[in-house]
Structures are given as C-alpha cells and as structure tokens.
C-alpha cells in the first residue's frame, strides 16, 4: 500500500525538521556563552540532510524520505573581543564568543517549523484519504 509509505516519508521529514529545530535552539541558547579559549568556545551546529534511498536498494523506484546524515559545526571565525575586565578573559585580556549568527538562526527556525507543519498536513490528508478508502462500499 503506497499510501502507508506517505506516513513513512512525512515522518522522516518531521524528524529531520525537528532535529533542525533542536540545533537551532541549541545555537540560540548558546549565542552569548563566553569562554576563555578558542578550543572551548561553542560553535554553531547545523544538520546535514540527504535523501534516504531505502526503496532504491529494494529494487523499486526511489520515493525517498529524508535522512539526517549528521551534524556539522560551523567553521566561521569566532568573535574575539578584547575585554580585560571580563572575569573569563584569558592572560592577554581576550574573551571568545561563539560564531552563531542569531538572525540566520531565527530564519532557520521559521523555515524548519513551516516545513514541519507542511509534513504534518500531508500526513493528515493521507490519513483522510485512507479513511475514505476504509469506508469503501459501506452504506
């Protein structure tokens, strides 16, 4: 039944988008975390999406869901600030702030939540289609 596959596909979409929301929340929460060395500083995290081709392996045409391959940390330069009075400042008086771009994260959040909603709506209408089919031939 291919309509049941719609649930698998939208489900994979929802979990991928919620993963994206998770990383966004983590990035925004840590946007102002200060540290005193480059290695310890938080870096912006983003998930990597890829089309999951499980069905292609099974020899059928690939109507693929989405898969999160992993989470990568951003390589953008950190925000280094000279603040000798800061309690976290290192020996030379610098503090290190994460490379999180809050504006970018906010737009990411909106995009992720819209995509999530779209997937929910697809599942909802697939459910309606199946319900109608189950009632086939009844009075």
């Amino acid at each position, binding site marked *: 039944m291919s309509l049941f596959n719609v649930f698998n596909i939208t489900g994979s979409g929802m979990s991928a988008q919620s993963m994206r929301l998770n990383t966004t929340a983590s990035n925004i929460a840590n946007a102002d975390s200060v540290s005193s060395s480059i290695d310890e500083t938080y870096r912006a995290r983003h998930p990597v999406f890829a089309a999951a081709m499980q069905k292609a392996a099974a020899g059928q045409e690939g109507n693929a869901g*989405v898969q999160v391959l992993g989470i990568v940390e951003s390589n953008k330069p950190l925000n280094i600030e000279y603040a000798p009075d800061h309690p976290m400042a290192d020996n030379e008086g610098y503090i290190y702030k994460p490379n999180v771009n809050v504006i970018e994260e906010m737009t990411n959040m909106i995009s992720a939540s819209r995509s999530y909603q779209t997937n929910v709506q697809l599942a909802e209408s697939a459910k309606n289609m199946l319900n109608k089919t189950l009632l086939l031939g009844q009075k």
Partner: protein
Amino acid sequence: MAISFDKGFELHAQGVLLRAERAEVIAGNIANADTPGYKAKGMDFQKAMQQAAQQQQMGMSRTNSKHFDVRTELNNNVDFRIPDQPDTGDGNTVDVQVERNLYLENSLEYQAGVQFLNGKIKALQKVISGGR
C-alpha cells in the same frame, strides 16, 4: 451474463491506485524540500493511466532480493520535474508551493475516485439484491 467486478469498476480502481502512488512521489518531494541536491520528481499521470488501461504491467516476479526488477513499464512514469528557476543555490529543485497544490489536487481526485467506486459498488449491490 456474469457480473464481473473488474468490468464493473472500470478504470476507477487503477486510477485510485495510481493516485496513491502519486501521493507518495509528491510527499517525497516535500519531505526533501530542504535537502541539498535533491531533484523533484513527478508522475506522468496520463501515460500511467493509459498503460493501466492497456494493462501493460507485465513483468517477472521477484522471488529473491538479488533479482532485478524487470517490468515493461518504464519506471512507472516517474520522472524528474523541469524546475522553474535554474538554480536555487544548493541544487534543490523542489517548489514547495507547487508540490503542496499538486498534493491537494491529487488527494481530491483520489477521493473522487473512491466516491466513483462507491457508486459502482452500490449499483452492483442493488443488482445482486434485485432492487430490494
């Protein structure tokens, strides 16, 4: 003349099955709307329906997972869509608005097909019960 359900339901049964498959293709597109490099796919419904009408779906059955999928139908008429804009920056060609509308349209047509089937079943029931 014997009552044949296949003849009674005409093409509506195949139509509903094809619509369900099309829903799957479109759902795959929408789920991958944010996947870099994903190319949107679509189904040539007219061609698929013609093939269903001519019953061309002859093929060999697969009894082992290592067997090739041999079918006369070509990929069930699923093909890549031609994108409206040449490049979106990450190689993704899914237009979510277009896909959502297509999904909605497809779902309504599916329900219409189910309703036609319902009518056929009711008619057959009437014939079987002799109008009582």
